[in-house]
């Protein structure tokens, strides 16, 4: 069920069982023509909106990225690829790219590993798993802004619960927000908290579709739980793992809400998307420069998506 989306471009239509009216008539008969206009009337509004607000911005972004342009200013100069050169040669680039890589790798790894562990707990045969499953998934649907504020309070060095717990064991609370490295750690923790439920539920579906007979055969052969998990479950779950790797990577690269609300200045937490936002809508109004960062981000996302489409058919079958 989880791979439908990514699998379908390869086989877009299966007309046999779908369209009742398939018998071929005259080439441009009245009915065909009527259907032609019915189709346009039904689909055109949506398609037009997608064209104007999804496809057009991609082209415009590339165009804006060639301009030296202050947001709100009436004039702009064409500077070619200078914005890209400026970005990659600036002292910001290693910082921004490093932060993006760190944030993405740790949040993806953290959500997936913890998600799998939670999925294993949810897969046990005790009562209450239904409630636990809903509870664990809940943060995924909650407002990032609300969640960010709640955790900002928990991390507050003066009055937060965490500082109180740390004092209990004789420690001073670190300055989570002012220290750039700790700010990144803090945002990563909250991001993983918010997203691991998604990984857990997808992994749970994967675990529940594992063939029971293979497991039973292995346990009859004397394989213990950990052995069965490592040698059977993990390899059999590889399509699920791949799906999650791609989807969580794409969403981590776009993470905005938590970063914005928890670290408004982007001190140590400026990922590509956040840097693009700050450059255009923060203090600088550098629209062209911001657009070039967006294009870089889009290129990265495009590469990941293409990889996904290329490898998605390489599913592992053991049955």
């Amino acid at each position: 069920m989880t791979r439908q989306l990514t699998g379908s471009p390869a086989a877009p239509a299966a007309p046999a069982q779908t369209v009742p009216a398939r018998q071929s008539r005259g080439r441009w008969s009245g009915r065909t023509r009527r259907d032609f206009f019915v189709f346009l009337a039904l689909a055109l509004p949506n398609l037009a909106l997608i064209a104007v607000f999804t496809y057009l911005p991609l082209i415009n972004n590339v165009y804006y990225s060639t301009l030296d342009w202050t947001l709100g200013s009436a004039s702009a100069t064409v500077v070619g690829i200078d914005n890209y050169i400026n970005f990659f040669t600036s002292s910001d680039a290693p910082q921004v790219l490093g932060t993006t890589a760190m944030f993405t790798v740790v949040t993806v790894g953290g959500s997936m590993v913890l998600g799998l562990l939670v999925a294993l707990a949810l897969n046990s045969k005790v009562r209450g798993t239904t409630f636990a499953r809903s509870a664990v998934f809940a943060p995924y649907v909650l407002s990032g802004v609300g969640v960010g504020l709640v955790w900002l309070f928990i991390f507050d060095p003066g009055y937060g619960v965490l500082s109180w717990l740390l004092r209990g064991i004789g420690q001073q609370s670190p300055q989570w927000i002012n220290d750039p490295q700790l700010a990144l750690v803090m945002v990563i923790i909250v991001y993983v908290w918010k997203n691991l439920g998604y990984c857990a539920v997808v992994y749970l579906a994967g675990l529940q579709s594992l063939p029971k007979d293979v497991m039973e055969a292995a346990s009859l052969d004397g394989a213990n739980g950990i052995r069965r998990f490592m040698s059977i479950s993990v390899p059999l779950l590889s399509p699920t793992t791949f799906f999650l790797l791609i989807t969580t990577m794409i969403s981590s690269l776009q993470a905005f809400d938590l970063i914005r609300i928890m670290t408004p200045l982007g001190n140590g937490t400026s990922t590509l998307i956040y840097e693009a936002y700050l450059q255009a809508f923060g203090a600088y109004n550098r629209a062209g420069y911001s657009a070039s960062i967006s294009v870089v981000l889009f290129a990265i996302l495009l590469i990941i998506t293409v990889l996904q489409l290329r490898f998605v058919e390489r599913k592992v079958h053991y049955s």
Partner: protein
Amino acid sequence: MSTLSPVSPNPASGVGTRNAPDAGPGLPVHRDRPFSRTNLVQTLAGGYIPLIVATLVVVLPLLWMVLSSFKQPGEIVTVDLKILPQGLNLENYHTAMTTVPFGRFFLNSLIVTTVGSTVKVILAILTAYALVFVRFPFKNVIFVVILVALMVPPQVSILPNYILIAGIGGKNTLWGIILPGLGTAFGTFLLRQHFKTLPGSILEAAEIDGAGHWRRLWQVVVPVSLPSIATVALVTVVSEWNDYIWPLIITDRPETMTLPVGLTLLQNSEGNGAGWGILMAGAVLVIIPILLVFAALQRYIVAGLTQGSVTG
């Protein structure tokens, strides 16, 4: 289900084989599987403790938010942690609503979510019906166009969309917030997948009865597809309500801000120790409505969100 519970490997092997019909006597795993008391305790502990820990990690921060929203500054700015508030004091909610126009934010969020979701669901139904049931020469090309749109990250489009919408006078308007998100690739995709599974015979029957496309859509296809439509609707409601980056950029006046943007405004004015109670009251107002919707209808929401990689 009976395949593994690796949290407690040894007792689990007993649990795992209990249901296996062919695990007869004399098999190796059967020997160390007396249904003893210690074994039972271990199984319960192995199964329950991780579940309880996982649930608490999620629930406690949210509970803390609710409790803190009732606390007075004196109960928050203190060295001793007070877990329970002194009473159900609504002062923070009152302060949050008077410091910034919270009622207005709530109403704006409600309007944006209702209008946006309604239009998106209707557009998704119409497009999906056309893609599945209406003859058209380039249907596959159009479907690929929609699929690719599903993979275009909305975050990279904010600057061009800002320039476009601000250019036609949409800044600080509700329609400016709603319009760019109205095209729906996700809903179209999900409903198309569902419509393709409908048996052709029910539509043929309707066609023979002389029903045109419009009647077939609303009287046959939609009534039998309500669960899928509910899934699309709920996922859309959740993402519209929580949407942040776009309303943040396109509004800078309180009259048209939505709740998440309004919370940012509140954070700017109450961002000191004493303001935490007020901020938690604000967080409750943005989080609890979705939490209630989720609690009531989580089956649809989980199904919808785990089906596609991108929402919106």
